[in-house]
C-alpha cells in the first residue's frame, strides 16, 4: 500500500512538473502574475512529492520489503542498517531517484529563497527546472521504475554489491549528485536569461552562489569517491581516469570555469555570453556523465545497465537539453549586451585564460573518454585510452592554468601590470624556483615531472600567502594593524585564498605520492617481518570468523619504527556469501604526512599470506587539498555580499562612482 503511494506520488510529480514547465512560461510572456506565481507553488509541490516517493522507497529498503523488485535485488535482511539506507542509491533505479530528488530540491530552494528575484526571471527559471524534472521523471517512470513489484515475494534478497557496503561510498553519491545536478539550476537561470534577452549583474549575483553551492558538493563528492577507491581497491591508487570518474570530472572542470566567469559578470559586467554558454555546457556535461554511467554505452554487455532503451531515452534528453540550449543561445546571444572592455593582461583576462584552459582540459578528458567508442563506430578498431594519454595531455594543459591561478587574483581589474604583479609575488616566484632545486639536491633521481609538480605546488601555496600578506600590509604596516586587516578581509577574499591554497596542497599530494611512493609485496608466515619506509612490519597471524553478512580473514600486523611506539594494524579480506564476492579491507595508518597502507592478499596454501605494503608520502594531502578547496567555496558563499540580496536603490547609488569611473 505504502509502495503504491510512493509510485502515485512519483506520477503526480510528473504531472506537476509538466504544469510547472509550461504554464509559468506562458504567464511570463503574458505578464500574468498568477500564472507566474504558479511556478513557485509547483516547484515546492514537485519537491514535496518526489521527497515523499523517495521516503517511501527508502522505507521499503529499511524494512526489507522484498516484494519490491529493487529491494530484492539490492538488499538482504542480514545487511547492516547503514547499508540498507545507503543501498537506496546503490542501484540504477535508486540513483535516478536521488538524481531527481536533487533536481527538485534545487527548484524548491529557488522557489523558497528567491522572493527577491525579478518575477519573470523566477517564473522562467523554475519553468525550465520543471521541464528538466519532467524529462527525468518520465525516464524513471518509463524505464527504471523503482516501485516495480515482485510476486511471489522472495524470502530474502540478493544483497548489495559488497564493494558498495562501505561508509565512504555510503555518503559519496549524495554529495556527488548534489553537485552534479545542482548545475541544473544554473542551466535554468541561463535559459531563462536567454528567453528574457537580458543578463545583468543581478543575474550573475544569483547564478554565482548557486554554481558555487553545486561546485562545493561536486568537489566533496569527487574527493570522497577518490578516497574510497584508494582504500577499497587494495593497491593504493586514487584516480584511474575511469570513464565513470571522468563523468564527474568533466562537469567539475566546466563548473570551475563557470563560477569564475560568473564572478566576473557580477563584478565587472563582462563575459556575460560566455558565462551563459558555460552554464549550458556544464549541465550538459552532467547529463552526458549520467548517460555514460547509466546507459552502459562504454562497456556494452558488461555494464549492469544493459537495457538500451535507457541509453536512447537519455540521449534524446541530452539532445533536447544541450541542443535546445545551444540553439536558443545562437538565436539570442547576439542580442545580449556586450560587456565592459578589458585588456588581456587584467584579472578578467586571467579568468578568460583559465576558462579556456579548463575547457581545453575538459575537451581532452571528453576525447579520451569517448574516443574508443568513436573509433569502434567509425573504423571498427578496438583500442584503449589509458591513464598515459590523460597524463600526457591533460596535465600539460592544466599546468599553465595553475600558474595563471596565482597571478590572476593579484592583477588589477580591466588593465593590469604583469611586471608589477610578479614583483608583488616575488616570494612565491623565488620559492617556486628554489623548491625543485632543493628537492633535486636530496634526490638526484627525481623525475622532471615531479620537480615541476613541486614547483607548481609551492607556487600556488606561497602565492596565496604572499597575496594575503600583501593585502593586509604585513611588510609595510605595524604587525597589529596588519593582523587586524587580515582578519577583516572580506569572506570572498578568504574563500579564494583557502580554495587556491587547497589546490596547491592537492598538487603537492599528487606529486609527492606519485613520485616517492614505496611498495613491498611479500608472502609472510606468522612471525615474518618486512621493512618499508623505515618501518618494520611483523605478521602476528591471521584469524577467521563470521561477522554480519560476511566471513572475514583478518591479519594482525605490528608496525615498529625507531623512536615510536609500535602500532597494530588489521588488514582484512571479506567473503560475502550471498553476493558471492570477495573484498579487501585495507588498513591505513596515517600521520597526515604519509600513509602506511596494508592490504591482505591470498594465502599461499602453506600457511603463508601475501601482504601488500605501501608507503604513500603526502597522499592525505590530496583529499585535504580538495576539502580545503570546497571549504573555500563555502566561506565564499558566506560572504555578506552574496547573501542572495539584489542591490537596493541605496547600494546601487553607493557603487556608482567607482562604476562610472571605470567606463
Amino acid at each position: 500500500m505504502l509502495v503504491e503511494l510512493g509510485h502515485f506520488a512519483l506520477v503526480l510529480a510528473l504531472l506537476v512538473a509538466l504544469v510547472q514547465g509550461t504554464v509559468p512560461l506562458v504567464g511570463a510572456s503574458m505578464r500574468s502574475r498568477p500564472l507566474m506565481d504558479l511556478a513557485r507553488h509547483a516547484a515546492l509541490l514537485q519537491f514535496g512529492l518526489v521527497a515523499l516517493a523517495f521516503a517511501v522507497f527508502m522505507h521499503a529498503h529499511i524494512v526489507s520489503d522484498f516484494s519490491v523488485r529493487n529491494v530484492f535485488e539490492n538488499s538482504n535482511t542480514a545487511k547492516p542498517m547503514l547499508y540498507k539506507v545507503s543501498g537506496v542509491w546503490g542501484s540504477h533505479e535508486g540513483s535516478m531517484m536521488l538524481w531527481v530528488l536533487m533536481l527538485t530540491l534545487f527548484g524548491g530552494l529557488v522557489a523558497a529563497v528567491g522572493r527577491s528575484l525579478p518575477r519573470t526571471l523566477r517564473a522562467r527559471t523554475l519553468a525550465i527546472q520543471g521541464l528538466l524534472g519532467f524529462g527525468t521523471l518520465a525516464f524513471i517512470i518509463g524505464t527504471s521504475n523503482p516501485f516495480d513489484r515482485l510476486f511471489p515475494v522472495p524470502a530474502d534478497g540478493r544483497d548489495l554489491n559488497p564493494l558498495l557496503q562501505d561508509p565512504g561510498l555510503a555518503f559519496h553519491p549524495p554529495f556527488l549528485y548534489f553537485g552534479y545536478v545542482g548545475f541544473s539550476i544554473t542551466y535554468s537561470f541561463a535559459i531563462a536569461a536567454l528567453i528574457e534577452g537580458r543578463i545583468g549583474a543581478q543575474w550573475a549575483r544569483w547564478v554565482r552562489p548557486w554554481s558555487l553551492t553545486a561546485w562545493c558538493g561536486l568537489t566533496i563528492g569527487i574527493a570522497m569517491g577518490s578516497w574510497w577507491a584508494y582504500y577499497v581497491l587494495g593497491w593504493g591508487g586514487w584516480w584511474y581516469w575511469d570513464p565513470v570518474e571522468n563523468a564527474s570530472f568533466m562537469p567539475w572542470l566546466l563548473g570551475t570555469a563557470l563560477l569564475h566567469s560568473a564572478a566576473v559578470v557580477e563584478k565587472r559586467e563582462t563575459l556575460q555570453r560566455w558565462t551563459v554558454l558555460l552554464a549550458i555546457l556544464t549541465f550538459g556535461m552532467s547529463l552526458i556523465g549520467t548517460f555514460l554511467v547509466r546507459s552502459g554505452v562504454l562497456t556494452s554487455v558488461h555494464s549492469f545497465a544493459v537495457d538500451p532503451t535507457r541509453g536512447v531515452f537519455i540521449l534524446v534528453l541530452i539532445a533536447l537539453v544541450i541542443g535546445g540550449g545551444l540553439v536558443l543561445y545562437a538565436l539570442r546571444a547576439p542580442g545580449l549586451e556586450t560587456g565592459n572592455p578589458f585588456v588581456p593582461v587584467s584579472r578578467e583576462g586571467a579568468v578568460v585564460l583559465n576558462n579556456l584552459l579548463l575547457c581545453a582540459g575538459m575537451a581532452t578528458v571528453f576525447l579520451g573518454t569517448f574516443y574508443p567508442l568513436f573509433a569502434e563506430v567509425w573504423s571498427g578498431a578496438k583500442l584503449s585510452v589509458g591513464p598515459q594519454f590523460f597524463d600526457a595531455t591533460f596535465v600539460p594543459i592544466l599546468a599553465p592554468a595553475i600558474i595563471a591561478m596565482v597571478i590572476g587574483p593579484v592583477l588589477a581589474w580591466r588593465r593590469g601590470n604583469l611586471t608589477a604583479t610578479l614583483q608583488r609575488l616575488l616570494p612565491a616566484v623565488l620559492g617556486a624556483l628554489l623548491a625543485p632545486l632543493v628537492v633535486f639536491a636530496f634526490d638526484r633521481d627525481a623525475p622532471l615531472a615531479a620537480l615541476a609538480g613541486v614547483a607548481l605546488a609551492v607556487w600556488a601555496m606561497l602565492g596565496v600567502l604572499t597575496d594575503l600578506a600583501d593585502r593586509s600590509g604585513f611588510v609595510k604596516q605595524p604587525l597589529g594593524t596588519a593582523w587586524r586587516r587580515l582578519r577583516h578581509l572580506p569572506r570572498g577574499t578568504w574563500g579564494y585564498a583557502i580554495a587556491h591554497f587547497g589546490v596547491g596542497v592537492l598538487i603537492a599530494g599528487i606529486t609527492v605520492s606519485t613520485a616517492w611512493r614505496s611498495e613491498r609485496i611479500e608472502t609472510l608466515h606468522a612471525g615474518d617481518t618486512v621493512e618499508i619506509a623505515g618501518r618494520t612490519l611483523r605478521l602476528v597471524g591471521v584469524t577467521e570468523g563470521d561477522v554480519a553478512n560476511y566471513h572475514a580473514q583478518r591479519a594482525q600486523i605490528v608496525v615498529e619504527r625507531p623512536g615510536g611506539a609500535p602500532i597494530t594494524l588489521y588488514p582484512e579480506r571479506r567473503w560475502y556469501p550471498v553476493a558471492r564476492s570477495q573484498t579487501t579491507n585495507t588498513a591505513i595508518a596515517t600521520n597526515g604526512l604519509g600513509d602506511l597502507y596494508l592490504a591482505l592478499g591470498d594465502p599461499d596454501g602453506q600457511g603463508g599470506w601475501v601482504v601488500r605494503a605501501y608507503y604513500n608520502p603526502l597522499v592525505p594531502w590530496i583529499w585535504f587539498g580538495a576539502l580545503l578547496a570546497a571549504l573555500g567555496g563555502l566561506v565564499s558563499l558566506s560572504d555578506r555580499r552574496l547573501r542572495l540580496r539584489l542591490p537596493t536603490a541605496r547600494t546601487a547609488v553607493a557603487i556608482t562612482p567607482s562604476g562610472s569611473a571605470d567606463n
Partner: protein
Amino acid sequence: MIRRLFFMAVLAAGIGWPAAQAVEPSERLADPALEARARSLSQELRCLVCQNQSIDESNADLAHDLRVLLRQRLAAGDSDRQVLDYMVARYGVFVLLDPPFAPVTYLLWLTPPLVVLGAGIFLVLRARRRRPHADPPALTDEERARAALLLGERG
C-alpha cells in the same frame, strides 16, 4: 567508479575473481632491473577481461597469465618494444593502454594540441580586435581638486 565496481562484482560472482589485487610475489623475476621493466610495462598493458584496469592492477586470471608471459619474454631477452609488439600481435591494439600514434589515433593525439592552439589564436585575435582602450580623458583641474578632497578625507 560505481559502474566499474558493478562490473567487478559481476565478474567476481561469475568466475570467482577475488577483489582487485595485483602482482603476486611468486611471479617476480630475480633480476631487479628486469622486474622493474616488467612492472612498468605491465602498467601499459590492459587486462582484457577487466573494465579499464592494467594487468599490473588486476588479479584476474588473465592478468596473471599476461604478467607471467610478459616476464618470460623479458627473460628471453626481448626489448620493451618487442614485448609490446608481441602482445599487440596476440591481442590487438586494444591491449595497449597507451594508445600508439597511428592513423586511427591521429585525431585523438592531435586534438588536444589543436584545441590549445585554437584557444591561443582566439585570445590573440580577441586582443587585436579589442585594442586596449585609450585611458579615460585626463581630469580637469576641477575634477582633480574634487578627487584630492575625496582622497584626502579617506587618508
